[in-house]
């Protein structure tokens, strides 16, 4: 579905008040990856790492400085219009709906822009109305919609022409918990039911954990991780945490194969590697246990570690 090889993008920036100097900023440096049909993958990186620049090259908005891109079998910048029929795009900070018109009018206009046949349009609109619960605000002008409502409208707008591939740039930015969940459910559904390939950039690691089986991580324009979330955890965060509640407060436990990270009254946090059973037995032998739990390293921490190590 997507093939990227040696993709780079440089921007020339002129700085200085009197003597203007040319600086070359390498936004994306020599990245390569492949995405198969039906994947749902996350594209992650700190601000300014090159995420949006990559997406813009994949959608035909920007012309690459070097490298080869194929999206749905087409070169995006050369065959932009053909590609536009096959892909949907939603950029969290850009508004593609008509600001002063009722939401439904925007859908009507898009139907004509994309030349969607009337029956297909009716069928998909009926479905999005149900799944995204659009009915209460379908005839409200877009400028009066809440952010959550507007994002649901934008998602519908991006999907009305039944694209094979959906690009989402920060789809859940600024949404509350309920709205976020609704968007995530929707993405899972279109990915499973319609086989739509989804590539999303996000800062929200919750999006990544709930949605994506595969992750691309970019930093300073370079691709620094391409793989599954489980492997990522294994590689960067093999240590887990055992949290024990003792009968009464005690000094930090001395147990082989673990070190105490934190003590708070009767509760202690132990960091360890490997199977938990032996460690638990050893802890139980040295102190009187009331309760225990084991936590996996959270992805947020792992990502922080990746950025630091790159």
């Amino acid at each position, binding site marked *: 579905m997507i093939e990227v090889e040696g993709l780079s993008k440089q*921007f020339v920036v002129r700085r200085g008040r009197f003597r203007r100097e040319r600086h070359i900023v390498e936004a994306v440096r020599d990245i390569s990856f492949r995405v198969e049909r039906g994947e749902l993958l996350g594209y992650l990186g700190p601000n*300014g790492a090159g995420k*949006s620049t990559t997406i*813009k090259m994949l*959608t*035909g*908005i*920007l*012309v690459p400085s070097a490298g080869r891109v194929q999206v749905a079998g087409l070169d995006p*910048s050369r065959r*932009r*219009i*053909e590609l*536009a*029929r096959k*892909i949907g*795009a939603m*950029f969290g*900070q*850009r*508004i*593609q709906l*008509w*600001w*002063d*018109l009722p939401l439904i*009018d925007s859908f009507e*206009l898009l139907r*004509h*822009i*994309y*030349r969607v046949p009337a029956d297909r349009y009716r069928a998909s609109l009926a479905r999005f109305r149900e799944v995204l619960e659009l009915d209460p605000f379908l005839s409200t*002008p877009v400028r009066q919609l809440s952010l959550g409502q507007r994002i649901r409208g934008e998602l519908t707008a991006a999907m009305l022409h039944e694209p094979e591939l959906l690009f989402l740039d920060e789809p859940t930015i600024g949404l509350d918990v309920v709205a976020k969940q609704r968007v995530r459910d929707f993405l899972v559904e279109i990915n499973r039911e319609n086989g739509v390939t989804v590539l999303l950039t996000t800062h929200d690691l919750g999006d990544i954990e709930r949605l994506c089986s595969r992750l691309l991580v970019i930093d300073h324009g370079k691709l620094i991780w391409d793989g599954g979330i489980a492997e990522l955890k294994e590689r960067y965060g093999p240590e887990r945490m055992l949290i024990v509640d003792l009968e009464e407060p005690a000094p930090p436990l001395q147990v082989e194969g673990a070190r105490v990270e934190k003590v708070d009254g009767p509760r202690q946090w132990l960091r360890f590697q490997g199977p938990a059973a032996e460690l638990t037995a050893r802890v139980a032998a040295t102190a009187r246990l009331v309760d225990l739990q084991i936590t996996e390293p959270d992805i947020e921490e792992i990502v922080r570690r990746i950025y630091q190590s790159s």
Partner: protein
Amino acid sequence: MVEPVFLWRRLVGAQIRSQLQYRASFVLDVTGAFLISFIDFVAVLVIFHNVPQLGTWNVHEVALLYAVSSISFALTDLAIGHLDQFPQKVRDGNFDILLVRPRGTLYQVICSDFALRRLGKAAQGGLVLVYALASLHVDWTVGRAALLVVAVPAGTVIFASVWVVGACLAFWTTDGGEFTNAFTYGGTFLAQYPIDIYSAWLRRFLAYVVALAFVCYFPSLYVLGKPDPLGLPRLLDFASPLVALAAALAAGMIWRGAVRHYRSAGG
């Protein structure tokens, strides 16, 4: 061929509907545009109050010239006047949205607004035309009438092409609005007067670089049956439609090249 026109009507219709949501401001805008352009023509009358002729042109002849230029300009302004906000769209990255839709970008930009409020200017041009035709004693022939009818759309296309080329600058400078205005509004202003009153370099610039002399100067000469004070080939009198076509093609090509320099905006 027809479908893009229907879509344009649909999109522009949507824009007009949303403009009419702010009704009071719409009425004020139309009236304001009419009054401002009315004063503009008063300035021409003031000149003729002081001098009987500009070159070989009397006030009625200049009024015809002015009317053709003014109507063409007003139609351009109606259809694509929103190009002056285009640099903003390039700077804040909202041009992105147009690039992910399956239509030409220039077409989408043209469809993105329709400033109905500028109708006031077209109304003024129409009134001046009525005044000019009533006071001139044109010796009407089929050719003259036809040329006058064709001159307005041709002039509109020429103006529009100059504006589009000006807007292309936005892809490099991100904010060259004022420089562009010098050509568009400045050129329009100069085109309202007969070009033979200008010095040679300015005349050549108007005639051959921005092609604005073809908007009204040459067609007016023919309609009035005036000999060209500059003695240029008379074939130029009929060249406006061809010049318009060439200008539109050139502007389209320049636009296509310019879009490849689009850099979007962060975020």
